[in-house]
Every structure is written in C-alpha cells, then in structure tokens.
C-alpha cells in the first residue's frame, strides 16, 4: 500500500469504518512510514481536541417545557408575534390604500364598501397569510379600472 492510498484511508481508519483487512494494511504501513505516522498523529490530536470541549449543559426543565408546548391551546410566543405582524401588515396596507386614494381625489372608502378585494399572498413557505388590498389601491398602481361597473 502506497502513502497516497494510506493518507486517503486514514480518516475512515480512525473512524473504525475501514474494512478490517485494509485497516491492518494501513496499520502496518504506519509502523514503517514516518510521514504517514505524522499525519495519523495529527488527526488523532485533532479528534482529541474536538472531544475536549464538553457538550452544553441541558436546561433541567427542558422536557417539562417541551411537554407544556404540546398541550392543546398553548400558543408559542413567536406565533403570537407572527400573528401581530400579519395584523400590522393588514392594517398598514389598508391605511396606505385609503391615503393614496384620498390624495388622488377618488371616492371615499365609505362610498364603496363593497369595493375591497382580498388576495392571498404567500408569506412563508409553509404559512399562508391573508393580505387585504383595497381595489382602489390596485387601480392607483396599475393606472386602470379593475372590474369597474
């Protein structure tokens, strides 16, 4: 077995993933080759160093917190925040629509309450948020009427 092949096999040999026959060949080579032996020692030292750093301490209430989260009706804070964010977007878009419409001199919102349309917008890959868009807002952006009688 030449040095190149031994170097390629060192990691798998260290991980105990090499075929036993190949592993014996690598070990035999390491006994006689100082360069490959140095590579092996370096790799052993690296894994030793990696294992030196202890795992993070687990929160003693971790399982209790997980089990609390499974209870029906438990809403996680980040979900409440998402809901608040969606509500904020909803209100902001409506306000923007009314403001733009007022500045363009169009009819007041109360004059055409049925004019509001809704379109679905994909906010997250797995979450569908509903965003309301006033029809007059669409008109202002597109510059033409949408389904106007």
């Amino acid at each position, binding site marked *: 077995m030449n040095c190149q092949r031994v170097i390629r096999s060192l990691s798998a040999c260290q991980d105990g993933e090499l075929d036993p026959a190949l592993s014996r060949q690598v070990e035999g080579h390491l006994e006689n080759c100082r360069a490959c032996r140095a590579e092996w020692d370096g790799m052993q030292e690296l894994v030793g160093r990696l294992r030196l750093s202890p795992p993070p301490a687990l929160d003693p209430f971790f*399982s209790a917190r997980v089990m609390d989260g499974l209870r029906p009706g438990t809403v996680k804070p980040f979900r409440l925040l998402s809901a608040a964010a969606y509500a904020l977007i909803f209100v902001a878009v409506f306000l923007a629509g009314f403001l733009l419409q007022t500045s363009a001199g169009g009819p007041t919102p109360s004059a055409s309450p049925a004019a509001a349309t809704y379109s679905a917008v994909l906010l997250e890959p797995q979450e569908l948020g509903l965003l309301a868009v006033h029809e007059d807002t669409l008109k202002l952006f597109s510059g033409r009427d949408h389904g106007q009688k």
Partner: protein
Amino acid sequence: MDEQKLTDDEVVAAVLGGRSRDFEILVRRYSSRIVHFIARMTADGDEAQSIAQDVFLKIFQNLAYYRAQNNFSAFIFKIARNMTLNWLQRQKRTVFFSRLLGRELDKAPFRQETPRFSPQDRREREDAVTRHLMLLSEEQRLALILKVYLEFSYKQIREVTGWSVPKIETLISRAKSRMKKNILLQESGGESVNHARKQ
C-alpha cells in the same frame, strides 16, 4: 413497565395510541444529544435549546409519518438537521440584510467569533477548535459532528442525511484535514482558510 426497557417504537406506538404523556420518555431519551448536535452546528448553546424544543414539537406533530423500523434516531435527527439548517439559513439572511442596512448584529455565529457556549475563561485552544468548526462548510460540519460528537457510524449518517457513504467519508476526511491545517496555521500565526470548498 420500566420505561428504560421500552423500545423507541413501543413508545411511539403508545403515543400514537393516545398516551401523549409518554412522549416525554422520548424527549428525555434524546434531548441531550439533540441539543448537543444543534449547539455544535450553531455554536450557540442557548439558541440550541430553543431550536431543540421546536424540533421535539415537530417530531410530535409528525409522529404519524414515522414508520416503525427501530430507527427512530435517524427520524428525529433528520428533523433536527433540517430545522438547524433552516435556522442557519435564516441567520445568514438576517446577517445579510443587517449588513445591507449598515448594522452589525450582536449575535451571529457567522461572525466566526467565540461561540457563547464556551465561557471566556475556558482554554483558548478549546475555543479555537469550536471556531474552526464553524469555518467548515455546513455539510462538512454536519458530517464531522455526527461522527465525532454523536459517534454515528457512516451508515447512520447516511440515514440522517441521505448522502452516500463515499460522500460522507470524503466530507469527514476533508473536514479533518481542513481543521488540522487551519489550527496549525493559526498556531504558527497565519490566517485560517475561511472558505471551505464544497464537499
């Protein structure tokens, strides 16, 4: 019955049969390994607990999709891996937009600084190893962490990641070589190789 003697599949069957509280057995059985895995991947011990909590919620919600083959470990590590990678992607986006707006975030593992789970008084060498771990590509880091810290076999890593065994072998071998090179460079006063090549 002694919960230690129950296999994962038996516990899953009990949970699916209506005994939801038995899910805690699985949480206790796997929580430290899941948190350990996520903490190594993110270099953020506190965030790891929070992500791990979401991982267990997701596992609970998807328990019906688990096919009993005495391979629950692969099932949950697959979910943990996906959620951790999603979190890392979100962090990258946050860092990107924050830089775009001219602000630097206080907390971002991509700054390549000392991770929070290593207190400052810990040995410098130990911190350096964790820092160098974060310099690896996500694939190399994932494979190395599963092998070195979780002591998974290549076959088990294949079940979690879906990669072929030769790919796993290459990823781990390159990760070790890169880390070794970077540590040597740093100790001799040079700069680390910051951009890990793909695979």
